[in-house]
């Protein structure tokens, strides 16, 4: 069974087609990089795969469950780390996680395990408003891990973080993959995608324009000595940082 199976997935916003008949599979335990310029359809795809948005056409299964028909079964099997740090700032890190254990019906003991996993045990009683960006990002990851999901969606997990914290978060992602958790990763950092992903898909104007391992993409598209960033710019014609 595939961890993610996407078939002809499409989403229209009035007259605009944000996602245009995309299809791909992700194997269990795989880190799948989903890359694309701003407005390419990454977030819309992620919202559909996490059950936040209904597709206009096509279908998808995540952890074996249909994203439209089986939303109730799907939700406890996925974890999502959003691009924006959407945590309750007036609660402590522990209380944020305690709330999630109640939502998911998970034992409270799990809080200490995930806090330890992301290195936040010592700061768990501090209010989140006092956390640094890096700490908040770790807490978001801890929240996504709390209910032991089979698939984790990470949207720009290291954006705006200093190199040390970004490195620690990449380490957590690698460890999760080793434990068999499937990772669906969107990032603007091509080096990060290259380093972490088993395979990457590049989406532009709603269509997948490349899908392969980073190594193969570099060979096929960029030529000798090229980076994933070169491949990206060549395929999309867009500078990542513009």
């Amino acid at each position, binding site marked *: 069974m595939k961890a993610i199976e996407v078939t002809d997935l499409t989403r229209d916003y009035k007259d605009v087609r944000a996602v245009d008949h995309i299809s791909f599979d992700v194997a269990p335990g795989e880190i799948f990089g989903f890359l694309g310029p701003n407005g390419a359809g990454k977030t819309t795809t992620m919202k559909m795969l*996490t*059950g*936040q948005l*209904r597709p206009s056409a096509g279908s998808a299964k995540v952890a074996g469950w249909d994203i439209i028909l089986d939303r*109730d079964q799907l*939700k*406890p099997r*996925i974890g*999502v780390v*959003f691009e*924006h740090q*959407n*945590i*309750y*700032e*007036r*609660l402590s890190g522990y*209380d944020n996680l305690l*709330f*999630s254990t*109640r*939502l*998911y*019906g998970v034992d409270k003991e799990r809080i200490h395990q995930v806090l330890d996993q992301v290195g936040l045990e010592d700061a768990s009683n501090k209010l989140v408003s006092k956390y640094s960006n890096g700490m908040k990002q770790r807490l978001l990851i801890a*929240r996504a891990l709390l209910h032991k999901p089979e698939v984790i969606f990470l949207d720009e997990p290291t954006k705006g973080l200093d190199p040390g914290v970004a490195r620690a978060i990449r380490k957590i992602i690698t460890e999760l993959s080793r434990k068999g958790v499937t990772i669906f990763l969107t990032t603007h950092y091509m080096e990060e995608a290259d380093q972490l992903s088993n395979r990457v898909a590049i989406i532009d104007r709603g269509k997948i324009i490349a899908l392969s391992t980073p190594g193969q993409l570099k060979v096929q598209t960029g030529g000798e000595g090229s980076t994933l960033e070169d491949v990206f710019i060549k395929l999309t014609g867009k500078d990542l940082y513009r």
Partner: protein
Amino acid sequence: MTKSKLHDTLRIILAITLKDLIDAIKNKNIITIIITSLFVVVVYKYLPGFLSEEGPPKLLVYDPGDSALLSDLFDSPAVDIYTYESEEDMKYYLTNGEEPELGLVIPKDFDQRPITSQPLQLQGYVLNIFKEDEVSQLMRYMEDEFEYILGHPVEISIEKIQIQPETYGITVMTSLGFAFVTIMTGMLIIPHMMIEEKQSKTIEALMVSPAGSSHIILAKAFTGLIYTMVMLIMAVFFNWILIQHQWLFLIGGFIGGLFAISIGILLGILMDTRQQLILWAWVGLIPLFIPMMLSLMDDLFPERIVKIFQWFPSTAMFRVFRTSMAGSTPLQFWAPQLAVLITSSVVLLLIDAWLVYRSTR
């Protein structure tokens, strides 16, 4: 719904409610709403006392025999005297009092009564909402004054008068205060929390969790109801002696709260920013508060117009609160009003549910 699904639903709603209750206490906007509402209740309670001029106690008299006592009382600077054509009139005006006042019936044959060694007996009336020590103090004062005028001891036996459901006076201001607390709490706290979830995007985290929009809305409604009831209980703390029928007060508060919350949820769904909310909440307060005020002005508007104002949901809530302070609770003063409130709440909650359903398509 299976047993396990029901269990999950309750667990999720309880989880969000608990989180919201804790989060709201730490939210300075919500604290401001709470303090403002309680401030209004305290002002409604104590403002009449501050505004009333210092003067002698009021004496409301029905004197069918034109007694000499009444003429002497008119000359006395120690009492502020009002006379009425009938005992019923005197009792009606007594129920409008905002501070302890004595109602007195002077018997027709009072002047002809023989003087004996026993004190002269008079029948007095006071409103039942005042404290015992305030009433005793008033009685002693009046008995001393009558003894001074008549040159003979007087004993006033007291009968307590119950407030009627449509009585003016202290119950009007107090009920307005209760309605204000209920509407402000339900209508403002919930949308504040909902807008904050939208702006901080924590709503997105909730939507990928086992919680759905219906869980979130129900949890917000529960949080709102809990806050409304706590606020009402705090408001009652200042006015406990006025509430004659606690059961009616609590039912009115609960259903009135539900009505205010259903408007609050609507605002929370439609508004995206706090600025929008504040603007529209004030616009929304006008059709809620103006009919309450206008329903009291039966001397300014035709009866038919006043009747229409009386059936506005907010006025219905206000009237239930008023009735809970009355001595008797005839069905027509609270049952139709509760029916109006329940119907309005159900209609508004259905609109809320439809908007949520539409937004997830």
